[in-house]
């Protein structure tokens, strides 16, 4: 089922963004599972303080600590760990790691400096959030006892803010021209701009999200950040072929033949039912037509695209596994 390899074999850090309502968190979770199924040890990170991972996987809220989220039962598959990155905790950790601030560390909190640095000082928050992800990505055998990840999936801020979020040092540029935070931002940027990173954009086939995706790809490229693929999410079911859709749009459906076919399947199809089904079908065909025009725009972006079907019953754990399978099969993982 799954192709032998991923389209992004070099990539360790997969950043997933998307406009609100396109399901970027779901895709990030599916992608993390997909990588695990390929035998990788995966870290799934969220940075927006939303506890979306806990909700999707139906586990208790995640602390600022890597937790085992999904353990593989299949032979050869890896485990998924999860981490909710919190800017304040990241700052305190950073301080205790690099500076032995002692009493000053506590005073910082008391004087509102921590609050200031993580919510008000422009850009600092993003450096801290990406910095933590960077730390997880950089671990190697020299870090004794620290878990090493083959793949990290970052459920990132939405498309409208993604270039600004990742382009941490330009965000800081007007502010900190030197100093440790600036140095930290520069180090993080080297990873984010490298072939070890790919930014995937999630969209749905509607005008606004597609336009935002096109704009997002342009902004990422301008910032020198590597664009991965576009994941087209919530695609309508493809049960009617082009011929059937054309007949529905042109109003040339043979309703009596349809009624007969329905009857043969044990459905007592009166005129009203047939009419309603045809009307639903026409509505669907119209939307498919619009989707096709948006799909053409997505294809013009010139990056690999992946499609995920809309799950009519909503996304639960089983649904996430289905999305993961589909992402594997299409080669995003």
């Amino acid at each position, binding site marked *: 089922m799954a192709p032998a390899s991923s389209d992004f074999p070099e990539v360790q850090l997969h950043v997933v963004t998307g406009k609100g309502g396109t399901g970027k968190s779901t895709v990030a979770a599916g992608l993390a599972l997909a990588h695990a199924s390929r035998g990788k040890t995966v870290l799934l990170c969220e940075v927006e303080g939303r506890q979306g991972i806990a909700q999707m996987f139906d586990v208790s809220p995640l602390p600022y600590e890597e937790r085992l989220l999904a353990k593989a039962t299949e032979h050869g598959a890896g485990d998924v760990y999860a981490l909710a990155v919190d800017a304040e905790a990241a700052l305190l950790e950073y301080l205790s790691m690099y*500076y032995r601030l002692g009493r*000053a560390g506590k005073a910082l909190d008391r*004087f509102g400096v921590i609050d200031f640095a993580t*919510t008000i000082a422009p850009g600092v928050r993003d450096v801290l959030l990406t910095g933590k992800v960077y730390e997880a990505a950089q671990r190697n055998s020299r870090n004794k006892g620290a878990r090493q990840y083959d793949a990290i999936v970052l459920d990132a801020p939405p498309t409208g803010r993604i270039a600004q979020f990742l382009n941490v040092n330009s*965000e800081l540029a007007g502010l900190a021209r030197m*100093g*440790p*935070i600036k140095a930290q931002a520069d180090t993080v940027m080297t990873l984010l701009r490298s072939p070890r990173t790919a930014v995937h954009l999630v969209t749905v086939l509607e005008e606004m999200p597609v336009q935002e995706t096109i704009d997002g790809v342009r902004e990422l490229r301008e910032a020198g950040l590597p664009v991965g693929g576009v994941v087209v999410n919530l695609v309508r079911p493809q049960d009617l072929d082009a011929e*059937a859709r054309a007949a529905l749009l042109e109003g040339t459906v*043979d309703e009596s033949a349809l009624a007969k076919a329905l009857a043969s399947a044990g459905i007592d199809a009166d005129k009203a039912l047939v009419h309603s089904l045809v009307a639903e079908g026409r509505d669907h065909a119209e939307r498919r037509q619009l989707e096709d025009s948006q799909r053409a725009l997505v294809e013009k972006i010139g990056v690999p695209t992946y499609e995920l079907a809309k799950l009519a019953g909503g996304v639960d754990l089983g649904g996430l596994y289905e999305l993961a399978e589909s992402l594997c099969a299409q080669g995003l993982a």
Partner: protein
Amino acid sequence: MPTRSNPRVGPMTASHEPTRLLDVDALLDDPKRRIIVCCGSGGVGKTTTAASLALRAAERGRKVVVLTIDPARRLAQSMGIEALDNTPRPVPGVSAGSTTSGGGSTTGGGAGSLDAMMLDMKRTFDEVVESQASPEKARQILNNPFYIAVSSSFAGTQEYMAMEKLGQLDKDARASGRWDLIVVDTPPSRSALDFLDAPERLSSFLDGKFMRLLLAPARGPARLMTAGFNMVTKAVTTIIGGQVLSDMQAFVSAFDTLFGGFRQRAQRTFELLQADGTSFLVVAAPEPDALREAAYFVERLSAENMPLAGLVVNRASVDPEVELSEAAAMSGYEKLRDSSDDASRMAAGLLRLHADRKLLVERETRLRSRFATAHPHVATVVLPALPTDVHDLDGLRRIGALLGGDDAA
């Protein structure tokens, strides 16, 4: 970090009263209604809802200005506000008062009008500084790197400036009589609560110990500085660098005299949101996340004594009006899907679509009814999903008609 530490607010037991229908036209026609705030999480169609409400109100005889935050290009074009210039401009093509139903207009006299504008966050911030400080001081502030960073990228500035703009529009409306209704869109944040929290965050920053520490050297002899302060400045210098600290100190001392003004303005706007003439409309999509955010927002409004008009559920799936259950449709689909003749294949496809639609409608209905059980007093209007985005005033008019419950929609 959004902390969800607020208690839940609810009826404790389910009452099984039917959901109240939100009467949008009554809201728009009420002359005492001066401000309508549309809020909700990102991607639920807030801006479009705000624009449609504004147009409908104008065409029912109100003199309306709509403040949009980050409209989609074509939506902005449809209202003739492609340029981001922070000034309300008349929307061409509004048929003033044309759809006013008999006796529906309570605004009396003059025909309606619609002005639209797009928020320019940095410009708004600059204008506040310019209006509060002497020209020389204003220039000092506007050129400070720390100010530039805060005014253009501080998470929350957009929310704060939207509030500021709302305050200005309200003052202008009262003074000039140019508008009698202001419709506000809110910034596309992850959490709908950000809009209410941002001004508080900014003023607590301006009021905070840290700011007072930064101001201390400007105010008194250095020896008054505490040991704590030295330690903190040293730590801040270590982390973000000395140059940032000196920029900040320069910013803060230049800004010092303005702080009082800023705090008062934030306070006044917050009070404006609690005033009788203000109504909040919470916008959501029939999805768990969007409804969860809507629930938090509804509860927060009630805790803050802010008047909630109701809930707009956008993008609902339309229930097909035939009695064919999802299960029956699926079993028909199973029987027909491997057929070779065209009619059977089409029948299979249509049955599958019908089954999916039924499942979707059922799920959305369940989500909405759970929301209604927990929030029984929230009047609601449900809008069907539309196949296309809005490109023109007619599109906005159609949505307005759906909101108002016109049969002709």
